[in-house]
């Protein structure tokens, strides 16, 4: 489980970071529905899920 948690955490962090960076530096050829900034809120959801998993399944809590 901790591997899944780490994966979600890192994945979410990278997606949010890329999304935030793109808000301030819009790409020359944006993807469809770029204005929705799906990478920001979707990445945030993954990040949150990863955080919850990391806390819940932390090795120190597993005994």
């Amino acid at each position, binding site marked *: 489980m901790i*591997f899944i948690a780490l994966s*979600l955490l890192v994945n979410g962090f990278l997606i949010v970071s890329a999304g935030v*960076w793109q808000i301030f530096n819009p*790409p020359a050829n944006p993807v469809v529905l770029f204005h*929705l900034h799906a990478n920001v809120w979707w990445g945030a959801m993954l990040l949150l899920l990863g955080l919850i998993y990391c806390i819940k399944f932390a090795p120190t809590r597993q005994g």
Partner: protein
Amino acid sequence: MITAAAMYVAPRLVHLSAVDAAIIIFLIFYFGLVLTIGFYLQRRANTGEDFFMAGREMTAWIAGLSFLSANLGSLELMGWAASAYQYGILATRWYWIGAIPAMLFLGIVMMPFYYISKTHSVPGYLRLRFGESSRALSAISFAFMTVLMSGISMYSMALVMKVVLGWNINFSIWVSSLTVAAYVALGGLRSAIFNEVLQFILIWAGALLIPVLGLVEAGGWSNLKLQIARNASAEYTQPVVDIGIVRQQPDGDSLDWHRVRPGVCDLVWLLDNGFFGGAAGACREGSSLGEAGIDHRRSVQDAGPVHRDPPRPSGAGGAADKADRRDNGGGYRRPQLQRSPAADAGALLWAGAFRLGNHGIDCGLYVRHGGKRERVYDSVDL
């Protein structure tokens, strides 16, 4: 060094600098993570039973997630998208008619036979029933299919890497296949299963956004249906009216192998998945749902006192039970079915051959553009 690296980077089609950086960082992290899982589980793969059967200690939901993940590879994500684009809702017949009933039949009727025979694979079961020659034939046909099918899967994956990151196709295939080989070699089936659970989460986390954004872009479900009705023929949304054998397909082309294929494949999926566990699914990495280490002994113990006899196939009926009682040594009894090896071997070859042909066509290598068949990598100018 730089020159050698540059050889592996082809001209890119999509320029996404911020996203590129995130993707590359995650890819490095991901490859490291799956290898870490392999190393982490290496110490638990001490015996053949550990390596090939994960010690028979996987819980049902882990084995189930792994099985689902094994059916969510690049072949499915790219192939089914291409198939839906080409045939419309007709493409869903593969699962609705071919795969789902077949998997239910496999799980309810056939799997108990596979399980009580205590074999490691479907070919192993065939050896119990028909002898070594049947097992050899099954193994060879499966190996032949797997080599080609894995090639298609890796090629589909490499196409994505090529389009998104500009990576050379051979480079992508070598890196990914060596990584998979490493973590499987290190931890065996247990490593494969846990990596597939990880992949299941990532695939769902990534793919779930597609229908959400797709519906937003299409203007909601109602507008989506309106656009399909306006831009495609009515048959594009008819899954069962044209069974694909006699009549023309939705794109209006005349009858040929590609037209016949969807109808025939319903039968193939039924046979292949129903009797042979979906050769790819059942034998992939030595696992099937029943043989991938689901601890059936524990469920038997939970249900009551431990019996000497193995769990009997509830769906097989009394005749099979009576046949099973012809004991072959006091232990587990070999299931006896009245089918000839020749018929079984023929069905295996049939299923294998059609699976090969269909995966080859539907893996996303071909799409239709205005009635003209083109290869995807031509259409995207790779």
